[in-house]
């Protein structure tokens, strides 16, 4: 009986996610009255703004991932190795972006770096892009940190470090040859989540007034009927594809090992 209940719960969960998606997809195909067609998708792909905003967000996502990895991997490693008692605090700090609304962060930025401040970053497009990247890094931090930290949990950081040291290795060798290769999959999965977050983010980009994909989606959503669901389906397909890619990488890595 409980087993039945559990399966029902599972089924409910799946429907919970699948229904909106199916409804949306179905609607996006109905642009031409009475028949299913891909007209809405064609319209989206023909819109130059789609490609411009998409490319912009993709670039910023890449920058965000680079900054995030450089910030997170050495920090997480060092905390696990030398400051285990500081872990709860670091974890707390990395969770802050979840509890400080994006609006707050952006307002803070605008107040700090406006055109009349010492560092007038919001005055130029490149400066604002930099600010936005920093904001995205903040948003992605919880996922990136968790992911890397979980990756580090699967290996015995202290013992591996001491083993490498006793064999004569220095810090650079240890980080590059032992630590990074062992958390590569975790880093990739963090990078993917970052990508997904940046592509869908609306608040920051809108408030900093940059031509990102999120605001574009909302704009379309407010003014058109059939294109927005088509867009959403495309976005979903992209993220799904990325996720599949990650799975593939993980599998291949395992397969490679098993074969060797």
């Amino acid at each position, binding site marked *: 009986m409980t087993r039945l209940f559990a399966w029902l719960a599972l089924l409910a969960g799946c429907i919970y996610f699948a229904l909106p998606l199916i409804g949306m997809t179905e609607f996006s195909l109905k642009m031409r009255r009475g028949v299913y067609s891909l007209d809405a998708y064609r319209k989206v792909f023909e819109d130059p703004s789609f490609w411009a905003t998409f490319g912009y967000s993709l670039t910023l996502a890449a920058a965000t991932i680079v900054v995030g990895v450089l910030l997170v991997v050495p920090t997480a490693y060092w905390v696990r190795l030398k400051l285990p008692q500081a872990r709860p605090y670091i974890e707390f700090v990395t969770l802050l972006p979840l509890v400080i609304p994006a609006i707050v962060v952006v307002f803070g930025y605008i107040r700090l770096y406006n055109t009349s401040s010492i560092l007038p970053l919001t005055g130029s497009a490149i400066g604002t892009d930099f600010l936005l990247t920093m904001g995205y890094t903040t948003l992605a931090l919880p996922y990136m940190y968790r992911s890397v930290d979980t990756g580090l949990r699967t290996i015995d950081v202290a*013992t591996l470090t001491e*083993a490498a*040291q*006793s*064999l004569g*290795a220095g810090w650079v060798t240890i980080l590059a040859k*032992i630590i990074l290769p062992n958390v590569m999959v975790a880093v990739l999965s963090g990078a993917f989540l970052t990508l997904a977050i940046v592509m869908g983010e609306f608040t920051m980009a809108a408030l900093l007034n940059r031509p990102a994909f999120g605001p574009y989606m909302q704009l379309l959503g407010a003014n058109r009927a059939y294109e927005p669901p088509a867009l959403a389906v495309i976005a979903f397909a992209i993220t799904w594809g990325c996720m599949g890619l990650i799975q593939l990488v993980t599998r291949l890595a395992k397969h490679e*090992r098993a074969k060797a």
Partner: protein
Amino acid sequence: MSFLNISHLEKSFGSLRVVKDFNLDVEQGEFISLLGPSGCGKTTVLRMVAGFETPTTGRILIDGQDVTGFKPNARKIGMMFQAYALFPNLTVADNVAFGLKVNGVPRAEREARVTEMLKLIGLPELGQRFPFQLSGGQQQRVALARALAPSPRVLLLDEPLSALDAKVRVSLRNEIREIQRDLGITTIFVTHDQEEAMSISDRIVVMNAGIADQVGSPFQIYNRPTTRFVANFVGTLNSFEVTVVNSTTLEMDGQMVTMAEPVTAEPGSRITMAMRPEALRLGRADGFETVLPAVVEEVHFLGSVIRVSARMAGTAIALDTFNRPDMPPPSPGQTIEIGLSGKHAFLLDR
């Protein structure tokens, strides 16, 4: 001058002194065990030799060179850990080659050395496997090969067998000892298992609360313990309260026991005499002059040895006797005679 010299080593964590005035001289090629209960400071001593902990005071000399201030990667030591110390992203061969690569050994030489090492540990065909494809015992053998590959001056073993099954533990400890003897490498082995330490060491350092209680060969440690702690920690002990009669004779429950070594205590005083379970004999026999009655309480069949728990002269005792296929062991409740001799007894201080 000895090969490895540790003098007046101390280590405190905060106000806690975990190692107190530790001194040890190890000869080249010697196999030394640090034995003690958990928290006795044995691992801390090893980690100070490896360079993972900085001594509060004291010096460590290897081959005449003071390495006390050296970083771990400059000490040229090899170390084997409890478990999970192989690099999971590298093959067995790459793991073994790691120390050589770091030290800039050319490729051809490196490969030859790896082949040699894998042969030494009896796994010549597993070079291309990854650690997760090996059993626990195989992993620890590879860890040994990796530690030995760069020809370290000292080999440090930090309870390398504690994560393994009983049977593998015994066979691997013998293998480690053989390889160590073949290579003649100076080795320090940390363990809390007294049988392990006794079985493979040249000398044992028994540690208690940060202090080296006794240093000696397994035979000395077991048969001539100098402190009550050592006597109790190493092996099982039967202790009897006896009265001193004269300088060679003790009285135990009305029976006289003649000691091999002179007794210094005052005649008439009560002292503690100790005997190992194997020094007690089931029944009468030549050379076991004193015979006392006892009642069997428990019989534990352990395989080659049968341990009999009995009550003799008001004291609970343990007696070891070999299994004999033609003679089943006594049963609980049975009254038996136990023979003993002062030759096999020793006295314990307060």
